[in-house]
């Protein structure tokens, strides 16, 4: 088991190394000079040069890459060009918004999707199944930015139950923060929950076709108990894969949603970073996001082992 984890870790590090090169090259290709952007239109060339030196934009690409990577390994992500604060600090602060949002959306979608999928499977071909399938189809088809807009119009502008966006900060109280994240999390979770519910349904149906379900029934388990005691855990395995894959979609979706709800999260930071040519922030955030996805998939692999004893001894 130890050597298995070690080999997985080596693979993980290799992926990260390749990813860092890819990211660096992409960022290098982005046109536009951060210093020029920061100083505006009628800045003198020598002012721009002075700022370039101050920002550490000199040196060959290889040098800069090595500087970036060695810095990252030591936990130093550089200083944001625009904000003039350490990127690590900036990212940590944004993470305090994005991470709870992602977790909330993930929890929300999972908690809704799994029972709903199970229910639909158990009502296969009947009205309950049909309506769940119809609603989830719709849930997948609705663009989440459009859905977010509708949510805002209804719950913030008309009903005034929630604020239209923004984030009070954790020192304003956990409840206030969770409240601020509810609408964005719902907007993010809707398509995810729809996809997940469908995956869950078909996974359960697949499992229900298995011989051991018939065995369970022959043992005298009721239909319902067969579903919860036998089908659920087995169906979880394909569902886990999808949850892992969705994490990356969740991050992408969060970028737009964070903009709609003007949440100070990582997505908005990276979006802003690109338009303001704060490339050092973009680099680090993209790296972080890639790392997060790789890490989540790594954890999904381990979760497999827990859900499926067949994978434990590898």
């Amino acid at each position, binding site marked *: 088991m130890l050597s298995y984890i070690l080999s997985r870790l080596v693979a993980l590090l290799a992926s990260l190394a390749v990813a860092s090169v890819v990211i660096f090259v992409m960022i290098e290709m982005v*046109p*536009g*000079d951060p210093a*020029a*952007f*920061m*100083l*505006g*239109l*009628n*800045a*003198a060339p*020598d*002012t721009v040069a*002075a*700022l370039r030196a*101050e920002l550490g934009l000199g040196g060959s690409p290889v040098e800069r890459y090595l500087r970036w990577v060695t810095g990252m390994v030591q936990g130093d992500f550089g200083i944001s060009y*625009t*904000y*003039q*604060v350490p990127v690590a600090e*900036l990212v940590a*602060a*944004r993470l305090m918004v994005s991470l709870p949002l992602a977790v909330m959306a993930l929890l929300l979608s999972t908690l809704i999707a799994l029972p709903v999928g199970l229910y639909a499977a158990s009502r296969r071909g009947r009205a309950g199944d049909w309506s769940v399938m119809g609603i989830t189809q719709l849930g997948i088809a609705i663009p989440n930015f459009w859905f977010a*807009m509708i949510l*805002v*119009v209804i719950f*913030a*502008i008309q009903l*005034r139950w*929630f*604020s*239209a*966006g*923004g*984030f009070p*900060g954790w020192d304003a109280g956990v409840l206030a923060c969770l409240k601020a994240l509810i609408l964005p999390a719902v907007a993010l979770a809707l398509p995810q929950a729809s996809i997940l519910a469908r995956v869950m349904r078909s996974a359960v149906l697949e499992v229900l076709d298995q011989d051991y379900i018939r065995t369970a029934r022959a043992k005298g388990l009721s239909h319902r108990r067969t579903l919860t005691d036998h089908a659920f855990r087995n169906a979880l395995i394909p569902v886990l894969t999808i949850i892992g894959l969705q994490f990356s979609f969740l991050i992408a979706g969060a970028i737009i949603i964070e*903009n*709609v*709800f*003007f*949440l*100070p*999260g990582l997505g*908005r*930071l990276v979006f*802003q970073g*690109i*338009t*303001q*040519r704060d490339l050092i922030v973009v680099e680090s955030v993209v790296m972080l996001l890639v790392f997060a996805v790789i890490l989540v998939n790594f954890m999904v692999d381990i979760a497999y082992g827990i859900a499926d004893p067949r994978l434990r001894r590898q």
Partner: protein
Amino acid sequence: MTLHRTAPAWLALAAATIMGAQTALAAQTSITVGMQLEPPNLDPTGGAAAAIDEVVYANVFEGLTRYRADGSVAPALAKSWTISDDGLVYSFTLHSGVKFHDGSAMDAEDVKFSLDRARAEDSTNAQKRLFTGIASVDVVDPMTVKITLSNPDGGFITNLAWGDAVIVAPESIDAAKTAPVGTGPFTVSRWVQGDRVELARNPDYWGDAVALEKATFKFISDPTAAFAAMMAGDIDAFPGYPAPETLPQFDADPRFRVMVGSTEGETILSTNNKAEHLSDIRIRQAIAHAIDRQAIIDGAMFGFGTPIGTHFAPHNPDYVDLTGGSMHDPDRARALLKEAGAENITLSLKLPPPSYARRGGEIIAAQLREVGIGTEIENLEWAQWLEQVFRGKDFDLTIVSHTEPMDIGIYANPDYYFQYDSADFQGLINDLKLASDPAERKSLLQAAQRRIADDYVNGYLFQLARTGVANAKINGLWENAPTQANDLTGVSWSD
């Protein structure tokens, strides 16, 4: 012109808010002000972004002089000043008892430090040109500063009112970008990057006490989100409100007050005068006649904006209305194009992000198509626009709002991105620099306005309006934007 100041969004935001001081009732002493863009840092002397001034100008930092809501310049840290007869030596007497937020006293040494720092070789001040005329800054005594210019400059007092000319202290300047220390009535209590800046009342303020105890600038870039936040009551005032199309709705709602004011932003169809077809004045003139200004103002700005015929603000007393020379006349445009042998040409139209440019661009493209000019629209971010258009001059047409006050002088620079090179015009500006007689200045300015209008240098569209929304109970916000600022010193709630 600075990049940020050309952005209407920024510009619009550059609302100044001076309010008549009013004693707020116990009810409410805090305000949340919406801004479209977040300042990259909080040091107005080290960054170009308009958003910096919009947070700190008059609130956190003060200069020797300052703008007021009506655009006039008034004394600030300088109690009074005298000017030598030759117009070269300025002597400022400072207010006594002024303290920085860190408790240290503000004196002449600080003034000298601030101005010398701004004009130094390695200065990263975005408006270095404001200070290039200074020959020396001398401390006469702790409360007196003498500034010597190399040439007389009628606008020097105004220059000192800019946000880039505020007074800072050498002890605290290193941290100014994130923890600014000024002399203003508010201190920066907290900056949640990406979300908001919080200000708190400075109890030791030297001037008149302000009504507000707490002010929050909240950054919402998306117009839809701005609309929603305003409607939901998350924001009390949005001086540079980015969605003019929704203003009638706010107007009809008694909870809100809509403010429409003027800005220094001439919005123009910038034309590359050295580009293949566009070096021909007939084609530029044809473009001018192809454009229907009112349609653009209605379509892009939902009616907010004043048509202009030259590069000059209509509210300026020296303004000449030259729109008649470039009336909407498609037949004339077609005839001119035929004459120039330029039927069926295609021009690039590169548009920066603000909605006046994006929407206006679509309308202009359709209007040009009417007379037979094809366009290839390319939407750019500011960074790309700066690189390709402003620095690279790789464009035919672009739309941008030039928001600096009195910036007609840019036409005298043949290397400026629209590459207008007229000895005639350069002569006028030279004369203007030397002229001090108001009547002479006026006639020179008017001649300059006519010159560029007659040369059809750019397509002159409209003067950007400043549209804002606020809770109806808020008093003392600036309606116009003589400079980028959200002056909260006079803001209060009525009950």
